[in-house]
């Protein structure tokens, strides 16, 4: 009943195809984003900001990239952590070597570098699909990490192999407290999410989905498979690269290439699957779920077993629960949390007339 879509008439096509067509939804989003900018930085604890919210935002961005490729364009990929690493180390080197470059410039440039690498590793998608493509993207995962690991230049010849990300400085002001870093991440996420929404509801997104659903027909419509697939790889890698740079600069702070191993790629994959393939909101839901689940499990284990819990055992159990969640989602809700949200909205609209 909270929803009353009745009475909202669209008189132009642009009204009909706006990002959030229902007025109530729109207000909710406005309030949430406004609260995110104005309230959260003041009221959230440092632990929540730097332990949960910052990685959540950064990884949501990466999940968005993964979803563009996998959910919208239907290209199975397991290399997102590799592109994160590319973005993170590119950003480090740009900040290190180009002094006049503003932070957002470095961020965009590292995204572009990741995108170019993405195009190269997207080339196999022109020949193969599905599982075969997934194995090809594994090559990118292992290769990128190996290159960064083997060539000292990328790490500024640091003897320990661990680099420390520079402080984020924007217009001469450094953003170093958790709240400040959080605001940078939130701003980048907000802008890039709007951009993603514009793309997926426009001709770009339609081409991606057309290639996903029926590539032969797409080709016959005049959609170039070559251009569309490589474009999806590039844009996806751009998002992964920027997300990786934020992950490194606002969350990890000091890092080595192995921080971006294949396990991280799997986590990103799970975020997208659990959140919902082919949805934008699903990226945020999925990333939140994957990040919060260990936190809650930890609380739960401590409540049940007391303080003397073996960390290795809980992490093993956590793994089991993750696996079970994936299987359950595949069986009962392959469209993920975004679909569950949609069903809830649908119910709310009819309530209390129909439950």
């Amino acid at each position, binding site marked *: 009943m909270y929803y009353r879509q009745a009475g909202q008439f669209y008189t132009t096509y642009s009204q009909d195809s706006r990002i959030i067509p229902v007025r109530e939804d729109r207000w909710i989003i406005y309030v949430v984003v406004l609260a995110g900018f104005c309230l959260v930085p003041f009221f959230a604890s440092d632990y929540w900001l730097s332990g949960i919210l910052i990685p959540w935002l950064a990884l949501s961005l990466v999940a968005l990239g993964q979803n563009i490729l996998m959910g919208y364009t239907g290209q199975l990929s397991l290399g997102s952590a590799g592109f994160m690493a590319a973005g993170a180390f590119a950003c480090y080197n740009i900040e290190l070597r180009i002094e006049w470059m503003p932070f957002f410039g470095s961020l965009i440039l590292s995204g572009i570098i990741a995108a170019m690498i993405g195009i190269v590793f997207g080339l196999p998608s022109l020949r193969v699909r599905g*599982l075969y493509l997934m*194995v090809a993207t594994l*090559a990118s995962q*292992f290769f990128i990490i190996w290159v960064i690991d083997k060539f000292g230049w990328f790490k500024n010849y640091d003897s320990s192999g661990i680099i420390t990300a520079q402080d984020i400085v924007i217009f001469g002001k450094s953003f170093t407290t958790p709240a400040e870093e959080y605001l940078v991440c939130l701003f980048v996420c907000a802008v890039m999410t709007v951009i993603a929404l514009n793309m997926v509801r426009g001709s770009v997104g339609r081409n991606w989905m057309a290639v996903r659903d029926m590539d032969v027909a797409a080709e016959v419509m005049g959609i170039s498979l070559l251009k569309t697939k490589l474009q999806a790889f590039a844009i996806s890698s751009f998002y992964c690269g920027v997300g990786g740079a934020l992950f490194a600069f606002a969350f990890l702070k000091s890092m080595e290439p192995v921080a971006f191993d*294949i396990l991280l790629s799997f986590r990103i*994959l799970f975020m997208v699957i659990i959140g919902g393939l082919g949805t934008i909101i699903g990226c945020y839901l999925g990333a939140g779920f994957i990040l919060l689940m260990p936190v809650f499990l930890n609380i739960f284990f401590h409540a049940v077993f007391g303080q003397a819990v073996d960390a*290795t055992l809980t992490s093993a159990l956590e793994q089991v629960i993750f696996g079970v*969640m*994936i*299987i359950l989602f595949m069986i009962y809700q392959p469209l993920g949390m975004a679909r569950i949200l949609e069903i809830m909205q649908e119910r709310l609209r009819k309530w209390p007339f129909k439950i």
Partner: protein
Amino acid sequence: MADLLFFLEVLIGGLLAGVMYSLIALGFVLIYKASSVFNFAQGAMVFFAVLSFVGFMELGIPFWAALPVTVVLMIFVGMATERMVLRPLVNQSEETLLMATIGLAFVLEGMAQFLWGVEVRRLDLGIPDVPMAWLADTTGIFVSVFDVVAGVVAAIMVIALALLFSKTKVGLGLRAVADGHAAAMSIGIPLKQIWMLVWATAGIVALVAGMLWGARNGVQFALVWLALKALPVLIIGGFTSVPGVIIAGLIVGASEKLAEVYIGPYFGGGIELWSPYVLAVIFLMFRPEGLFGEKHIRRV
């Protein structure tokens, strides 16, 4: 001459390591042929099997008793997987099934570590890992007895499975199921039993592979990552071809060792981390259906 001997030594070592990849890939092929499910969890099954085996031995069960116990456990795991994961997902897309088996891999890996702990175990099968004396004496090539035994075991497995597929009634049913579920069921082939059998067999193959790998490299979580290299093997060999993955395993094993020894030093080593994948990608560009895979003509 010494160069040539060294080359042969590296090559043989690589080929024998490749047999191990083939053995893991074989488990994939078995399930893929019967149910068109790409079982990403095969590597996890390998880890689970051998860790359980070692775990049983640590509990004081002797080798000869631990083996059948683990076999029974793997049959149970295979059947449970079929019953609880795959049956509810019948008729779903290949991608959905793949994701479910990725979930399964996490369950098995977590379960193994939860039950048996995370320490690295040694597994002694009683086969010495020393160079074969007469070969070293006569030709000067050093090849480990263990590797040769592993190769022989793998060969026996392959032949047994090939016979199972081609000569038995079960094998006939398997091939029918692989061609089309509904059609196979309509002529009275017991689909569910066939699938359970396949998963149980895959479990046993996983145990054998795990024991050989574990004895060589220690029983540890890293086995899961080694098992990932079965993926490029599958790509090169083709998902449905038993001889294909055998040859592909040999190619991958030999090429990664040769590349590591002859090209690796120029880049500071470690290229065997990715060289099989790159090889698979190059292969894909020229022969997407694999060595012996069936070429699909997409009809519109």
